[in-house]
């Protein structure tokens, strides 16, 4: 990058006749400097796992890809990068936070139920077409935090301490959420056994 692109754009004396081409060159410089090659390397290493985590958390492939993109946009804009060892946990936490924010926006917009309220009844769960759909419905009916704990535990295989680190709560809270979530799921799925 040769300088501030906006400043250069207004510097008429330095603008060649092909102004559009000049501006495109400035934009290309911006792109080069931001390290797309490095981003691609990290993306290829982590994006698939993050996508799967996002899918497990939301059940929505399109949303999961958006979450992955959002996470990498944040990483890309961060002034410093976590170490290679911390990268996976860092990106995972961003995705979890983004899912949380998505949930919050839906609640604020009235498109989703607040945590612990309005959960589908056992009858509704039992009406699900098959066992897998019933499990889906039962997990979806958990509180947001319980659902994240369940996914991070059973899908990601994280320990309680790792879950606590990922979502920013205490280990004790994780244990409590997991215990209550298991109990709720078992109760709601009991009739289908």
């Amino acid at each position: 990058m040769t300088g501030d692109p906006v400043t250069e754009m207004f510097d008429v004396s330095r603008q060649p006749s092909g102004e559009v081409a000049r501006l495109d060159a400035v934009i290309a410089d911006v792109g080069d400097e931001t390290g797309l090659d490095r981003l691609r390397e990290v993306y290829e290493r982590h994006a698939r796992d993050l996508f799967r985590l996002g899918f497990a958390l939301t059940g929505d492939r399109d949303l999961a890809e958006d979450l992955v993109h959002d996470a990498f946009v944040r990483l890309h804009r961060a002034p410093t990068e976590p170490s290679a060892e911390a990268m996976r946990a860092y990106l995972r936490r961003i995705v979890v936070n983004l899912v949380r924010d998505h949930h919050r926006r839906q609640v604020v917009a009235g498109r989703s139920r607040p945590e612990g309220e309005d959960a589908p009844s056992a009858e509704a769960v039992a009406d699900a077409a098959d066992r897998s759909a019933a499990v889906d419905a039962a997990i979806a009916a958990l509180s947001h935090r319980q659902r994240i704990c369940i996914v991070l535990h059973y899908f990601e295989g994280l320990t309680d301490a790792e879950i606590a680190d990922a979502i920013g709560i205490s280990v004790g809270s994780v244990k409590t959420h997991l215990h209550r979530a298991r109990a709720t799921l078992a109760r709601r799925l009991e009739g289908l056994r």
Partner: protein
Amino acid sequence: MTSDFDDELRAHFDVARDADLPAGSFDRLVDRLDAPLAPLRARRMPKLLALAAAIVLIAGVAAVAAAQGGGDHPQSVHSVDDPTSTTGATTTSTTRPHHTTTTERVPGSTTTTTPGTTTSTTEPTVERDGRPDTIAAVVDPDGDGAGSLVVLDSSTGKVLRTLVADQVVDDVDVAPDGTIYYESDRSVVALDPDSGEQLATYPHMRSPEVSPHGSQLASFDHVLGTVSRLELASRQRKNILGDMGGNVPGQLAWSRDGGILAIEDVGPFESPDQGDGPPSLRRVILTDPNPYDDQIDMIDESFAHGIDDAASPVFPADGSLLVVSDLSQDGRHVVGDRMDAWDLASGQKLGEVSVSDVSGLDASADGQWVIATREGKRPHVVMTPAAAGDLQDLSRAPEGIIAAAW
């Protein structure tokens, strides 16, 4: 719980384990990254138009500077249509009017004419506009950790008195009765600003924040990793927030009625001590100062998960929550280029003010004024009337201010 049930839950996610990213995913990410450049592309204008725009821009800046005596920095307050929009959805900008001047003093402010003042000012009398007369500030000009606790004139930034010199001082807060609480070498010290007498020392405590009525002191216990409040009269402590799972709190702030404690939550990849790592995990969470246990007890569903990319919470008098956002790393410090106002009732963002490299905020006792500490090569203090957007430099403030309160 049976292991069969655990196995079933693990197997339930096999569908997700087999899922794969759609083709072209990285290219779509690159398109997203290009989006901020779109405004540049849109400004492909002829040379003359560009030149005219530049002239208008320069003339406008000069006019504003002349109108403000060259010392103030007009700030635009942007309305935000969609509070959840990641782009901010800025639609309009309005320059706020200046506050009118008045000689009214604000309850709870400290005074500049107390005995023991070591430096007398010869500055001409400055018209007051309702702000407290003085500011308590921590100054670390060399950034080496050895700093001073000083009292500044709130209009000019001139150092009126030095209360503590050449010690490890990190944070400061001023109680409604004028008592100064400062963090020194990971303890909190209560200081009488008039006599300079140390009234009490609270070991293992950091980030002191006195409640609006002065009866409680919130702080971070760096040994236990908890946020607690101390009843100053009875010396009884109550945990507000238990183990934060590797996170540490930064700045604390009480709401005007004392019913909410806002906590700057610093992620595990970035702690104040380490000073490295991306700042994107910083957020502000709102907690109940009287929780039923020591777990996080969020105030409202709208803020149940905090405000991401936010730091330095304060509660101005208008009942809103003000935070610094658009964060980036500046040396050891995390600074922001925007202040966002949030409505506590609806959980929606009310608006934003453009600032520059701002970190710590503190509201005056009446909530009408907010100090913002600016970091950088020449750190200084700026102020804004809490309900408006004008920032005013304190031209005579010393370099290296890392915290300020009033």
